[in-house]
């Protein structure tokens, strides 16, 4: 039995979701007989961890600081083993622009895109390049912040006139944004556990609602189908692409890869990878694990074992 520090909350915009993920993990750990030290991440994080001397940290944080390598770096410094991916993988996966460049280089299909920093517009007159981009991508275009983990700040631009306001919204969350070809089709998520793909989940929005921040975490706003009803060959290739993405980014322990199955050409396109997928009762990874016969407690235990089995960080 281990003493486990559950890191949750924090100041990210996904704080509430993280608190729910963390609480659920804590319940599971208690049932498994572990000693739980609950930590709402804040200014006293280092002191709390030093006092608690945990055997392992369960990182149940989402979004900025928790999922972007920041907390992982601190845990490395303290020499505390932790669940999930290491610093570099988190840095890559939280940065959609970086992720997409890596995928393009590795031949993993991802919707065509262009990325900009705020300074490109402020200092280099990038606005003048927008018409050329709009021509290349054709409308509607999806505009999103590079780092936001949820759908906050993601906008559809139906025409060129919508683009500046959509950019202003996206820049509210990050100094780097991307404009992406909109892929119409089925929304799929493949969770990966220790390098192995779990059954594909399909998110079916009700009432044609955009699969947004709201429906993503709420029972009833979106229907989830697991395993997704896909032809065998398609399901296999989707799972393979997800695992390739997971490996490409160097994710460890677990992760979730979100894709679109393009209704035009029938091909899957990877949108993003999440280093710390949600673990709430409506989250996709626990559902996929459940469909594979892995209950939530087993999932949590497995992630702990993987964390403890990794070579300890230099201390």
């Amino acid at each position, binding site marked *: 039995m281990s003493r486990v520090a559950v890191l949750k909350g924090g100041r990210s915009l996904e704080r509430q979701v993280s608190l729910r993920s963390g609480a659920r993990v804590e319940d599971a750990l208690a049932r498994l007989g572990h000693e739980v030290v609950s930590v709402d991440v804040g200014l006293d994080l280092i002191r709390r961890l030093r006092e608690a001397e945990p055997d392992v940290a369960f990182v149940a944080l989402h979004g900025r600081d928790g999922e972007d390598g920041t907390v992982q770096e601190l845990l490395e410094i303290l020499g505390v083993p932790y669940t999930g991916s290491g610093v570099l993988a988190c840095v890559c996966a939280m940065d959609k622009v970086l992720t997409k460049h890596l995928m393009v280089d590795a031949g993993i299909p991802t919707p065509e895109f262009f990325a900009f920093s705020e300074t490109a517009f402020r200092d280099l007159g990038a606005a003048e390049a927008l018409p050329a981009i709009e021509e290349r991508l054709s409308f509607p275009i999806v505009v999103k912040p590079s780092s936001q983990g949820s759908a906050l700040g993601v*906008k559809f631009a139906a025409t060129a006139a919508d683009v500046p306001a959509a950019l202003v919204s996206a820049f*509210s969350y990050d100094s780097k944004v991307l404009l992406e070809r909109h892929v119409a089709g089925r929304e799929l998520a493949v969770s990966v556990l220790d390098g192995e793909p779990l059954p594909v989940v399909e998110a079916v929005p009700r009432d044609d609602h955009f699969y947004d921040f709201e429906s993503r975490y*709420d029972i009833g706003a979106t229907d989830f189908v697991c395993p997704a009803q896909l032809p065998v060959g398609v399901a296999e290739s989707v799972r393979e692409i997800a695992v390739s993405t997971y490996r490409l980014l160097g994710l460890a322990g677990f992760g979730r890869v979100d894709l679109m199955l393009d209704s035009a050409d029938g091909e899957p396109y990877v949108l993003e990878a999440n280093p710390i997928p949600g673990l709430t009762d409506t989250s996709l990874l626990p559902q996929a694990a459940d469909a594979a016969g892995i209950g939530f407690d087993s999932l949590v235990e497995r992630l702990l074992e993987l964390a403890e089995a990794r070579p300890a960080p230099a201390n």
Partner: protein
Amino acid sequence: MAKPPPRSTSRDLARYAGLFASRTRVMTSSAMRDLMAITARPEVISLAGGLPDTSSFPPETFAAVTNRIAAESCARALQYGPTEGLEETKACIAEVMAAEGMRADPEDVVITTGGQQVIDLVCKTLIDPGDVIIAEAPTYPGAVPTFSSYQAEVVQIDMDGEGMRVDLLEETLDRLDGEGRRPKFVYTVPSFQNPAGVTLSGARRRRLVEVARERELLILEDNPYGLLRYEGEPLPTLYSLDGGVYVMYLGTFSKILSPGIRLGWVVAPPPVLEKIKVGKQAADLCTSTLSQLMVQAYFEQGHWGDYVDSLTELYRRRRDTMLDALAEHFPPQAEWTRPAGGLFIWATLPDFIDTTDLLARALRENVAFVPGSAAYLDGRGHSSMRLNFSGSNEDDIREGIRRVGKVIEEQVALFGTLTGTAQGPAQRPEAEATADGESGARVLPMPRRGDAGRRAGGQ
């Protein structure tokens, strides 16, 4: 300590999702609610809440009140009470209503657990799924989830500086009539409206009451702030103009005494009131006896009006501070209302700014407000924001507005860069006086119906 029994984990979603009533499907949490959760952190200057300043309430008064209850009516305070409320507390309510020129028969009053319960009970009594409720655009954000949970269809009527456009209301009623639909009630906050801060003019009040009579239409008049007037002359309430035939009246002690005691009331025509009582009995049997006795003991001291006067002084200064700060720190493209009372200012920014996204940015500067879309059920309002001035001290108001102004300025500049139309300082129009001499509430740039969905990311 005994461990809690293990909770089930397998198929949590499937297990519970099948049990939810269909009405909970529309009670979704929103991005905003998750954002608002961050606003509660101590380092954040929150202009988001609707909090009165309870720190100015004298602790010795509180002590005297509770001591008196302990000495004289301990057993009664700890006991259940009648569903409709205690007679002595109804006498206090009569005093408050008299201060705004109203007389209500105690028989027609039910004391409730806060004013919010009145909205819930009126919906419970009148609304079947799909029924129409008329509300202002924007409307009280706290009523939105209540209306949604009863699966009402809410039709929102535009406002200007004189409150709800009653002419548009009549057009809407005609249209609905043509569709064979009759709204169950009109929900309105006529004085110092939440969130817009505007006040329904005297002429429109009279016309609204006439419309209700002509069409046999019920009105729910929500009046939490009527006594918190900072300038100008009081206007008659809809209830006093109508005499309680078609107007149901919602009052509360939350803003004149304390929201913590959870005490409100409803005055309604007897047949409606009977149903409301049945609904209340099912909901919570009765309103807190302890709270009702506290109000009674407090009113017997005879100084409740002085306390309201002191709040009025305090809030007037805070409102003026916020108005000054807005003039100093908000860009010329922004507009805002100038409330003559109440707790809120409603600011509207250029159309290209989405205030939910702006809030995410503002939270990084440790300041919060309510995004305007919380006050609409039809997807409008995303360039507006509600700002509260009663719950923060003057330094925080100045600093908070400065920070919000800074992030708006950044976005305005960025938009200018993106569109090649970098906007210089435009001339701000002078405030216009309105018909009733309501000092200077500028005509509200409320988003129109046709605007919804026109912008990127429109719902």
